[in-house]
């Protein structure tokens, strides 16, 4: 079987596996698989010299199909009708982290401290990425596509932001692993 046919089979399987997140089906889903397989073939052709035989060739090759599917799903996110978002959706945060509304008195102060830390401790870029991913619920790969960046760079920005926020909360009396009550 030709390599492209194998890649297309994997791409079709992967878009089917993720189709619940995409909310598309039929020809559009198949078109996405075709694009992913074609771009994966280009990537494999250009990187073939990097294959060192440490794994089966098929495993190495399929990796590029999976990456291409992820990337295309990220771009596809912006093709959906978008609900206009407020600049920052802080009221969504408790729900996003499964905080019980009945126990709001226990976490309200922490969320206020977190918001303050986001506004004062993060760089502009860190704050932008935090708001988009955490508050607005934009998938990381979709943000990568919109900012013309790469997954590693955006993940690193979030990683540094998370570390800064945790440190700031600890400095304000919220110890790691027990943020339910500030220590005074």
């Amino acid at each position, binding site marked *: 079987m030709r390599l492209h046919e194998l890649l297309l089979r994997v791409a079709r399987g992967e878009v089917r*596996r993720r189709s619940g997140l995409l909310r598309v089906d039929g020809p559009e889903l198949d078109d996405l698989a075709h694009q992913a397989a074609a771009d994966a073939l280009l990537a494999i052709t250009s990187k073939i010299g990097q294959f060192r035989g440490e*794994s089966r060739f098929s495993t*190495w090759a*399929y990796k590029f199909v999976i990456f291409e599917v992820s990337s295309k799903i990220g771009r596809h996110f912006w093709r959906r009708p978008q609900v206009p978002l407020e600049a920052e959706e802080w009221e969504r945060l408790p729900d996003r*982290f499964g905080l019980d509304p009945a126990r709001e008195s226990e976490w309200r102060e922490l969320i206020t401290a977190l918001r303050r830390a986001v506004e004062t401790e993060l760089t502009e870029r860190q704050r932008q990425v935090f708001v988009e991913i955490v508050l607005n619920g934009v998938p990381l790969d979709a943000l990568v596509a919109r900012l013309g960046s790469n997954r590693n760079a955006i993940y690193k920005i979030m990683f540094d932001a998370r570390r800064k926020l*945790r440190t700031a909360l600890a400095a304000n009396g919220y110890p790691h692993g027990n*943020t339910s009550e500030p220590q005074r």
Partner: protein
Amino acid sequence: MNDMSALDRFLHTDPEDVGCGQAMEVLHLYAELAATNAEAAAERYRGVAAHLRACGPCQEDLEGLLAAITDPRQ
């Protein structure tokens, strides 16, 4: 369970986390080992395992690759 546990987990950063770049570089090696022994893969590639615990997109890619290489039709 602590009501704040999800937020705690989100803010926690593992110093062993190698990031997306390095994880993607070796994902095919990790997947082949994980397909037969997930614990051995996590032990052999500790930094990648730390990353996969924190990065949803890379974990999703691993699951996709595992599905592809364990599919009997491939």
